[in-house]
């Protein structure tokens, strides 16, 4: 009876497998641009653990533990987030749609666990600059497929920017990331203010994605000459003196800003594209709001939410309050709107000159 149940579980798996086999040539071709999987060293390839893997696991998790995403997770680096007892329990009992393998035990289990903990044999061909086994090429390949499905539209297939998403090889998050600590947070939570959605990847999926992004960043960093994207040196075409005149004159900037006040040293805090983006429109700038209640009482604070129906503020103590707009009167003071009003007036020269001037405020 038990055997029958296993067959029942395996049947859909085999159906999936048939599909994946049909896809196999496509996968192989898609790897053409990345380091190819080379022959494995004899030591791990011939080990009993390797044989057990080939017989029992490779059908779903790939010949080189790279997984077949999104359906089957990669097992490379699994020792970083599961202990041997946890892994052996999953092998024995199964998990979700993965069937259990109760016949794997004793020496076979030990050697399989040993094999699963071994480094990716193809890591030797990994991208220069890779720091750990989690950046091995097999894992990065798996992450590449995931990246293509979920991220490439915005960030470009090569991670260097695409429709609306920034170049990740220059991203502060990526550069500061150690083994996914920064990247995974952004991916899991999204960046609603920039319209980046949140993604619910499993730990192995995330690990592969991180490996891929780091491999691409390392590749980009190894090619410093002729770098794509926007460099600080690209944004030096303006005239600082003309920019200063625009700042105090036609631009109206000096009505709110001062080179010796809020903008003192601004070029030390920001540079290049980030400085230019903030200059044109500082995202996340706060607005103030005053709400008058039916009783006549007035509430002041930072505008926390405003649509057609509800207004909300955060008061000086940090407490959130909200009201139906039909019940109150409110008045928003939003200095950042001055940036929006300027949009229709700028020439490209104004922007380049203003940028040159701001870069003198060091």
């Amino acid at each position, binding site marked *: 009876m038990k055997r029958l149940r296993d067959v029942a579980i395996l049947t859909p798996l085999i159906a999936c497998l048939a599909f994946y086999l049909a896809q196999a040539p496509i996968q192989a071709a*898609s790897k053409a641009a990345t380091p190819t999987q080379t022959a494995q060293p004899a030591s791990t390839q011939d080990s009993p653990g390797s044989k057990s893997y080939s017989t029992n696991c490779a059908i779903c998790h790939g010949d080189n533990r790279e997984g077949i995403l999104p359906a089957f997770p990669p097992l490379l680096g699994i020792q970083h987030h599961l202990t041997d007892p946890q892994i052996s329990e999953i092998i024995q009992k199964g998990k979700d749609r993965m069937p259990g393998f109760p016949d794997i035990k004793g020496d076979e289990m030990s050697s399989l666990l040993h094999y699963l903990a071994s480094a990716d044999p193809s890591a030797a061909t990994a991208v220069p600059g890779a720091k750990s086994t989690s950046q091995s090429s097999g894992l990065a390949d798996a992450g590449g497929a995931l990246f*293509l499905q979920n991220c490439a539209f915005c960030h470009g*297939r090569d991670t260097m*920017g695409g429709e609306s998403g920034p170049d990740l090889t220059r991203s502060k998050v990526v550069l500061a990331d150690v083994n996914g600590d920064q990247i995974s947070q952004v991916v899991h939570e999204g960046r609603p203010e920039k319209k980046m959605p949140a993604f*619910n990847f499993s730990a192995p999926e995330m690990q592969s994605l991180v490996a891929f992004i780091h491999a691409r960043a390392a590749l980009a960093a190894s090619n410093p000459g002729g770098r794509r994207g926007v460099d600080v040196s690209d944004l030096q075409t303006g005239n600082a003196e003309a920019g200063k005149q625009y700042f105090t004159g036609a631009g109206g900037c000096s009505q709110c800003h001062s080179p010796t006040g809020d903008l003192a040293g601004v070029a030390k805090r920001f540079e290049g594209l980030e400085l230019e983006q903030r200059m*044109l429109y500082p995202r996340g700038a706060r607005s103030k709001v005053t709400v008058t209640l039916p009783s006549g009482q007035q509430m002041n604070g930072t505008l926390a939410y405003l649509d057609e129906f509800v207004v909300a503020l955060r008061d000086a103590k940090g407490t959130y309050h909200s009201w139906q707009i039909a019940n109150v009167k409110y008045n928003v003071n939003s200095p950042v709107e001055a940036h929006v009003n300027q949009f229709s007036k700028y020439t*490209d020269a104004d922007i380049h000159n203003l940028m040159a001037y701001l870069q003198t405020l060091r």
Partner: protein
Amino acid sequence: MKLRKDASALAIMAILFLAAGPIHLAAQNLDPANLLKPPADSWPLYHGDYSGKRHSSLSQITPQNVANLSLAWAFQTNQGAQIKSSPLLVDGVLFFTVPDNIWAVDARSGHQIWHYNRPSKGEHIGHRGVAMYKGWLYFTTPDCHLISLNAKDGSVHWDKQFADPNQGYWSTMAPLVVGNHIIAGVSGDFDNLVGYLRSFDPETGETQWRWNSTPPAGTPNATTGGMTWMTGTYDPELNLIYWGTGNPTPVLNGQTRPGDDPYTCSIVAINPDTGKLAWGFQVSPHDTHDWDAVETPVLVDADFHGKPRKMLMQSSRNGFFFVLDRVTGQSLLTVPYGPVNWNLGIDKQGRPIPDPAKEPAPDGRFIAPDEGGMTNYRAPSFDPKTGLFIVDAHPSYSIYFAKPADGTYGWAGADYGLWGKGVIEAIDYQTGKIRWSHELGPGGSGAGVLTTDSGLTITGDAFGSVLALNTSDGKTLWHAGMGDPMQSSPITYQLDGRQYILTSSGGVLFAWALPQPTPASLHSQARGN
């Protein structure tokens, strides 16, 4: 006793079934004639009908009673992908998609009938929906397969690959069914690839014809691109399909493709039987800002400046509203519907003239609108009574860069959005003047628009509310928070005498309707309580 009760119930059901008429006898079977004049209890095409007006004759829900609108049911897909598709409704069953997935859902109750899932490699940015021919559905996949399925149970009828994902193609679009043609298009901006439309035999999947937007890759001084990633419209009298084509490639660098780059960023008229081009109109000659012209080519028959016309209208991603004579492709009106700063006037043919100084440059060019454009794939609607073309507009600014190191392949540059907002604009098609506008919030909403004969405009705001506006003045009459901004275009239908409005948010589909008496309340009424 139980048997007798069941038998009598069966007999009643049988009588009801027969009384319901021939449409119900042909369950999950779409009569091709219905595509020419869709009944009120159906939404058998991506845009509801061939015209792309997304205007419904239904009038149960009105400006007067819409304040009572409430949730009839919600369907939870329980997965992360956002619903960006327009459902089809045929014989009481809704069919809608996200990448790799189709659901068949009972339109009365919102319960699942079947679910099809086929994991695939390739770009999963979104999916617009399925097409239907007789009893078959047609579904495109991220790895560029066109799959025909049995609408009764989702079993696969045939499966054809129609583009090569390894070259960089993918597909998201809902095919268009015209006669015995299943017409599908492709996506792909990261490689210098030729865009095309391909027509398939509904029964066998054999290719009937292929129309290429651009010359073969590698042709000297010629463009590639012109992807065909949104569903077109069809005029049965002229027997022409109308399709928008995408941007040229390389995307932000136009140096290797001098000239206008036909037929990228264009509206094209094609014979659906032969695949031959009747005419083409470029809304963005020599585009360097990724402004695909794939927005719905809306077909309207009405007077233009006192003369009856067969017109085509498009609110294009490049910021201009176009009215064309769809018999000839001649321009009737070209006017911006928000801030644009990239053109040097309009040429004699009614096309904006691109300003060379506004092509992406190493030190950046300040451009309106942004790359997402003044509008995007979510559909506008045309309201015949008021003559208003109602669109979810996106006034916006951005900076575009390109330098030699960016090369001449694929994206070939970089661009950064600075600011944008969402506004519903009601455009007078005779003049291009904006009669009213309704602010939706910062960033933009992304919702499509539906209008109804009763004078309602249904859309969504930037915060996640579905809105019912008064079509005559744009004022809000009803709203409900759905949790996340709508990324699809609403539809409506009437079943068993009850009108439903369908919207989506995240992975959830919502059906809204006026409250109807419950069996209990009917019972108490009957007893005089």
